[in-house]
């Protein structure tokens, strides 16, 4: 990988919260690289290699306008986490490393009909029941063991499969990005290895920074939009953060291996082998898009099954004590995805391939892709913070469509290694500190908890502030956690 340090002097300030590394910074850049950040945040961002990785992505064939880093950007491999790029169709590249190994890692937000005071007497019982029944963590199988035939249906249909099997109501589907089904998915393009890994993982959270969270709406910023979203102060909401599990990871592994060979075949010069790519309209490019579609669908089905389990447990724990037990979907957003989307470019409506790796779609009013109920205001953009801090529901904007390929931040972004976090934080102490703040934490591993401590992440308040000031999403509501269940 080309690893040239980037200093603040290399960055040109375009607007108060938008900076650019010009195309002439490095001779192999095809377009500039842009970063949404404050000046204060930039000083931290340049400490790792995220901007160098962003610059590497600007060398890819077919890239248009600029590569973009969101305020929560951090170093990864290939495209940095918090990175967005777009390539022209039909022959601009598609790169599995610009999507990531956890295809369709994303979040689904459910909204309840109750408030914090309704739930308070049952909080601990709810937390314990969710922790013991929603499969999470390493080595734990899901509640389903699928046959390959059934798995192929999941890969083809995604959330629709979950609906047809009775796990979720059909009303949920409209409120999932892509209605929870990638039409490009083709299970024949998924390896046996990937399918073997997926057979017993549907309905599981996984580990690391995946979680299930019960929150309350702590503050409303835009009351009119909050009303359309069905959010009100003190309302209880539920956040599910997970992705495509081992199946998605294997699809990415298989695809990167093929893309390395394809890069040689199509004479794509790679400054980072994890940016291995193929033209979108090539056999390899289309095969990856079809396999990635299956990963997307597995994740949407996965979040649907977890939502189904939560609804069951909600009825069980709260039933008889509280009326109004419906849990509706606010929205479901994907963080790691490649999609064909239309934007106005140089005055012309143009379809491009947008690649988001740790970024969220942020469409404003009038887009047909978003639920009818939201078309007057824009789509919900759900940005979870680090454990025990806060999360935000924001709304997408026209400005995001104009400036950032309809994208905004996806979370808080790590700033500290897991080792360092464990040296500074004792998991048991963290649990007790958070409990003193009224947050119940459930995790199998105190070490795992320490790794996910808030000090290891950027401030979600800062990330959402900059996102707001940059105009690529606007705050609608701030959520405060009451229960956090970690995969471990």
């Amino acid at each position, binding site marked *: *990988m080309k*690893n040239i340090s980037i200093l603040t002097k290399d960055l040109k300030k375009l607007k108060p919260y938008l900076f650019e590394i010009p195309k002439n910074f490095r001779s192999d850049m095809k377009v500039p690289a842009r970063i949404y950040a404050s000046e204060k945040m930039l000083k931290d961002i340049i400490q*790792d290699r995220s901007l160098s990785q962003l610059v590497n992505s600007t060398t890819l064939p077919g890239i248009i306008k600029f590569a973009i880093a969101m305020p929560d950007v*951090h*170093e*990864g*491999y*290939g495209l940095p*986490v918090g990175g967005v790029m777009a390539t022209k169709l039909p022959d601009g590249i598609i790169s599995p490393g610009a999507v*990531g*190994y*956890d295809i369709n890692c994303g979040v689904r937000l459910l909204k309840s009909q109750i408030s914090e005071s309704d739930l308070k007497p049952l909080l601990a019982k709810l937390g314990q029941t969710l922790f013991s029944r929603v499969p999470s*963590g*390493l*080595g*734990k199988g899901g509640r389903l063991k699928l046959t390959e035939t059934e798995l192929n249906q999941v890969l083809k249909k995604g959330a629709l499969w979950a609906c047809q099997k009775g796990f979720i109501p059909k009303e949920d589907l409209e409120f999932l990005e892509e209605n929870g089904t990638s039409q490009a998915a083709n299970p024949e393009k998924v390896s046996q*290895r990937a399918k*073997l*890994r997926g057979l017993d993982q549907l309905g599981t959270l*996984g*580990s*690391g920074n995946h979680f299930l969270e019960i929150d309350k709406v702590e503050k409303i910023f835009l009351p009119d939009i909050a009303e359309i979203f069905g959010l009100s102060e003190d309302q209880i909401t539920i956040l599910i953060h997970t992705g495509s599990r*081992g199946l998605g*990871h*294997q699809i*990415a*592994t298989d695809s*990167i*291996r093929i893309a*390395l*060979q394809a890069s040689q075949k199509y004479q794509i010069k790679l400054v*980072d*082998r*994890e940016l291995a790519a193929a033209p979108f309209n090539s056999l390899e490019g289309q095969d990856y898009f079809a396999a990635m579609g299956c990963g997307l669908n597995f994740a949407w089905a996965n979040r649907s099954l977890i939502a189904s389990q939560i609804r069951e447990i909600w009825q069980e724990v709260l039933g008889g004590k509280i009326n109004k037990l419906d849990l509706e979907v606010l929205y479901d957003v994907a963080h790691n995805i490649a999609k064909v989307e239309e934007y106005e470019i140089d005055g012309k409506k143009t379809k491009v391939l947008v690649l988001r790796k740790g970024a969220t779609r942020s469409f404003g009013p009038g887009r047909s892709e978003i639920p009818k109920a939201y078309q007057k205001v824009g789509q919900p953009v759900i940005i979870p913070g680090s454990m025990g801090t806060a999360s935000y529901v924001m709304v997408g904007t026209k400005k995001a469509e104009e400036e950032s390929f309809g994208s905004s931040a996806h979370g808080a972004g*790590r*700033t*500290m*290694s*897991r*080792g*360092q976090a464990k040296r500074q934080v004792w998991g048991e102490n963290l649990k007790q500190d958070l409990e003193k703040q009224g947050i119940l934490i459930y995790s*199998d*591993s105190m*070490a*795992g908890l320490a790794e996910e401590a808030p000090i290891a992440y950027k401030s979600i308040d800062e990330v959402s502030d900059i996102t707001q000031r940059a105009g690529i999403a606007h705050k609608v509501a701030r959520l405060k956690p009451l229960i956090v269940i970690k995969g471990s």
Partner: protein
Amino acid sequence: MKNDFEILEHSADLKIKIESPNLLGLFKTSALGMFSAATGGKLKPQTSNPKSRNIEVTGRNKEELLINFLNELIFLADVFKEIYLKFKFQKFSQKEIIGSAFGSPVPKKELAIEIKAATIHDLKIQKTTEGFSAIILFDI
């Protein structure tokens, strides 16, 4: 130089430095380092009756071979809920491995992190007069 691994600092992923007097040792030590990280450094002696899993891996060069080898172990570990610390190779070259990995079951509570994949990011197997070294980045 002896077979050794060291977990390096990285803000989001897992980075391991591997050293070995020979290439075969580098591959085996990479697996050891990876599974050590996966179990939080708590590797136990293998079961007396380990399961043998076939390994057949190729690569266009030794870096790709190493990543493909590690990713094959990640696949096996995920499917069979095992870790692999002992190997027997019938064939080992810079482009191909044919052999067996011997697996010990790992109780779920002994897994500390979930390794999604070994990446080829920045990977260069360095050869010195003393042996071989490499730094591998894993997505977790």
